[in-house]
């Protein structure tokens, strides 16, 4: 097979690519602006510090230009699809990490040209985005780390390798065994070597330590923000979700500073009792398939603009709180210890349903039970896009657990489309109404 011959991707004329990209980009810019406007309108006393995140949320704005400039000065950009990519190693090699999963609805239709509609739309949309070169972060990536989590992600890396070098990173499906940890550690060592070879920078103990400290600081800021959501709502869920998501592409040190500044402002609001919405709004947690900016903002919008209005105070999403909740915990700063700590942080802490054990995905259950209690959750929305098999299947287990503590949960299935908003609204509002009626008593 010649190097030009594509394994999956169809040949599309440059003219069509340009036309499609311009179309989708224009629509996307409008949608991003609309989403931000709606978020501004919904939140009472919206913090001024959100302005920074509104700006960095612009997928075609300043941040891609900044990365482009860094690339021109010799930096490498490493894209990743799932959260298991060791960010600290990327940072230690002086490269830039960006997550490249797509939240565009329109590009999922383009992905249909390559894979059937039964495939998860997050995957189809990422394929479609690559077909037309839409995503600045995907385009800027010199290489992609494809973590083999669910079936969709496994094949996605294979498909994207038609365009970019792809480093596959298999994960063991059972976490708590000695051979799994050995295997995973080997993967990390291999990844370290690959990153060093690409960047030409050796990941020294000193550099790795400083990178770990950098993400530890980010986690601290991140946890401070999530802790602020435990009490009366001082920030709307969509705003917090936007802050969390921008971590996937922003400069990490700057993101940390801005998040700390936001928290400071929010703490002041708590002192002044300036709440983001009515204290009667039911407190909702979402879990399930990742929700990715900008189009896949449908459910958070329906909850927070619903009649009655709800407020998202927590999530169990790999596009949300799972991004940064767990710090890399190092005891001694030896290379060996740091590698172990990174390994544990990415593998052991993950609540992704791609894992199993003799007790099932216990870590996810414990995470959710803790959230329900500590964040005073009044209802859970279990969100699944069609084709997302692991989340769909694990629902039954999660529901049993939540039933036991009388926690209402609603299974909401949808697609990467705007057309079912009406139907979804009916269901989400009925659920919120049900929660309100229960709170009233």
């Amino acid at each position, binding site marked *: 097979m010649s190097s030009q011959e594509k394994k999956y991707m169809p040949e599309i004329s440059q003219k069509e690519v340009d036309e499609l990209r311009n179309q989708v980009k224009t629509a996307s810019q409008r949608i991003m602006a609309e989403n931000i406007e709606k978020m501004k309108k919904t939140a009472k006393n919206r913090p001024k510090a959100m302005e920074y995140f509104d700006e960095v949320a612009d997928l075609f704005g300043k941040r891609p230009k900044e990365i482009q400039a860094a690339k021109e000065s010799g930096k490498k950009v490493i894209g990743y699809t799932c959260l298991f990519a060791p960010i600290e190693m990327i940072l230690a090699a002086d490269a830039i990490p960006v997550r490249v999963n797509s939240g565009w609805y329109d590009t999922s239709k383009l992905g249909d040209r390559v894979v059937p509609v039964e495939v998860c739309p997050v995957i189809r949309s990422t394929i479609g985005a690559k077909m037309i070169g839409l995503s600045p972060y995907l385009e800027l990536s010199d290489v992609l780390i494809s973590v083999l989590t669910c079936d969709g992600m496994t094949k996605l890396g294979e498909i994207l390798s038609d365009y970019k070098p792809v480093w596959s990173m298999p994960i063991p499906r059972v976490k708590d065994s000695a051979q799994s940890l050995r295997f995973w550690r080997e993967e990390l060592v291999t990844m370290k070597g690959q990153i060093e070879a690409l960047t030409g920078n050796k990941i020294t103990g000193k550099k790795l330590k400083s990178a770990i400290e950098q993400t530890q600081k980010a986690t601290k800021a991140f946890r401070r923000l999530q802790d602020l959501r435990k009490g009366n709502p001082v920030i709307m869920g969509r705003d917090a979700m936007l802050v969390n998501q921008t971590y996937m592409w922003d400069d990490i040190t700057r993101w940390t500073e801005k998040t700390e500044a936001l928290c400071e402002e929010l703490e002041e609001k708590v002192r002044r009792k300036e709440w983001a919405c009515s204290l009667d709004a039911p407190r909702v947690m979402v879990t399930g398939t990742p929700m990715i900016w900008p189009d896949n903002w449908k459910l958070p919008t329906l909850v927070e603009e619903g*009649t009655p209005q709800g407020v998202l105070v927590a999530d169990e999403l790999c596009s949300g709180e799972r991004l940064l909740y767990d710090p890399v915990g190092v005891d001694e700063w030896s290379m060996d210890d740091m590698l172990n700590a990174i390994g544990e942080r990415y593998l052991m802490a993950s609540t992704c349903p791609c894992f199993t054990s003799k007790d099932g995905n216990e870590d996810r259950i414990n995470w959710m039970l803790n959230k329900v209690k500590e964040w005073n959750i009044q209802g859970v929305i279990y969100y699944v896009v069609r084709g997302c098999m692991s989340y769909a299947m694990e629902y039954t287990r999660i529901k049993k657990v939540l039933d036991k503590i009388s926690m*209402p949960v609603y*299974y909401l299935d949808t697609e990467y489309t705007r057309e079912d908003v009406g139907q979804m609204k009916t269901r989400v509002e*009925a*659920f919120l109404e*049900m929660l309100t*009626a*229960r709170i009233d008593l």
Partner: protein
Amino acid sequence: MGTQTVKVVILKDGKVVARGKGFSGFDPANSAKQAMEEALKAAKLKPSDLSHVTATGANMSLAPKADSTISMMGADAKAGVFLFPKARTIIDVGAEEARAVRCDERGLMAEFVVNERCAAGAGAFIEAMARALEVKLEEMGPLSLKAERASPINASCVIFGESDVVTLIHRQESKPEIARAVFDAMADRISSMVHRLGVNPDVALLGGVAKDVGFVASLKRKLGLDILIPEFPEFAGALGAALIAAGKAERSHK
């Protein structure tokens, strides 16, 4: 404010005093206005006599002069428990949607499921199948009761279901058997929805499709239970909304 028809129920001192009905058509707001006028006339009341109006249904946002709204599931729960105080599983099958609601011991909605993205579990499916069989809609039920056995058809989609029916016609299956297959397929879908919620022995069936004897027979067979059906099942959603309105009116008087 249903997808096919608009229904009005007027309550006075906890009793139904009038009902009104009309096709939703292209102008549901106007149909609602007419149905309301009809009901007011039957009750010998003026619009100003209404202390509170609550709307429900797919087009509830279009209801003229509604003081409040309630979700369809909330209205089903309210009406189901009002009509049958022991009922805790309430099924509503309308023209384009089927829903099942589970209520807690206090009679409050605790959980619900809705048929997903397709009318194959709802009234429109029977209509399409009646067309394929070239029988009148109201004949489908009685016809199906004459069947001696059932032939399975695809109920995941109206379109596929219709082509399955055509296949059965070509195989020269009898019309009663095909009609029964249609109801069995619907009942299959709805009973799995109900099973997801957990079945309580007192199951109420609301919505226009509850008037279809064929569907009721199939659903009883699938659930292995008797089913509670009110006298005017198609007005149950409107009744639920009226009960909510009565509650609101009462609270505002206090």
